[in-house]
């Protein structure tokens, strides 16, 4: 039984280190990518896979069902709320024309009031909350 505890500790530590490395790779992507949309795609890396691996590691180290439930809630809310923020940020980036140097390959918001130089304020177009 004790051996299995040590094995669980070791696997949990490995998962924690791999989650931290995934988070570091996402941050390096944030530093190196050129514009808001690509940085947003790099930012999903620590928010989803990094948090998943880290919470799995913490659950393997703590080994209590209450803590596993709390960590599952952490993962659930993280996966629930980070797309909301990313959606709003990407929508404002599109609206204020910060979508990078080149043209977009596919622009589903093309007819919804894109401004080239930045807006004066929230537009009353009602096309969304962002």
């Amino acid at each position, binding site marked *: 039984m004790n051996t299995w505890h040590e094995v669980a500790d070791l696997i949990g530590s490995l998962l924690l280190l791999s989650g*931290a490395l995934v988070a*570091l790779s996402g941050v390096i992507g944030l530093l190196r990518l050129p514009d808001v949309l690509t940085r947003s795609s790099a930012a999903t890396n620590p928010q989803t896979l990094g948090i998943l691996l*880290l919470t799995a590691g*913490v659950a393997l180290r703590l080994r209590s069902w209450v803590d596993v439930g709390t960590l599952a809630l952490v993962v659930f809310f993280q996966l629930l709320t980070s797309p909301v923020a990313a959606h709003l*940020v990407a929508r404002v980036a599109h609206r204020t024309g910060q979508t990078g140097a080149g043209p977009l390959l596919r622009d589903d918001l093309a007819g919804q009031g894109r401004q080239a130089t930045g807006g*004066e304020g929230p537009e009353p177009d009602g096309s969304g909350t*962002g």
Partner: protein
Amino acid sequence: MTEASDILLNAALGVVLLAGALLLIRVWRGPSMLDRAISIDVMAALIVAGIGVHAAATRTRYYLSIMLVIAFLGFTSSVGIARFIAVRDRPNPKAHP
């Protein structure tokens, strides 16, 4: 095997701290407020990660609720920036390419 776990946990803590330090560079430079909003989101995720590493290293469970609250409310700052500040922001995208 315990020593290996300790080494791995210390390495994870160092990697999380390094990621936070690198992220501060993006917050400092990031040409528009939207970049800072994204960086603040990632910073909330890194704070959750750091609390998780601490909880795993010391086997305490008292900070898991703080992880839960940050994971639940971390997106509100970035939503506020995107909704109320970034639409009036005029960045210079050539300043820091």
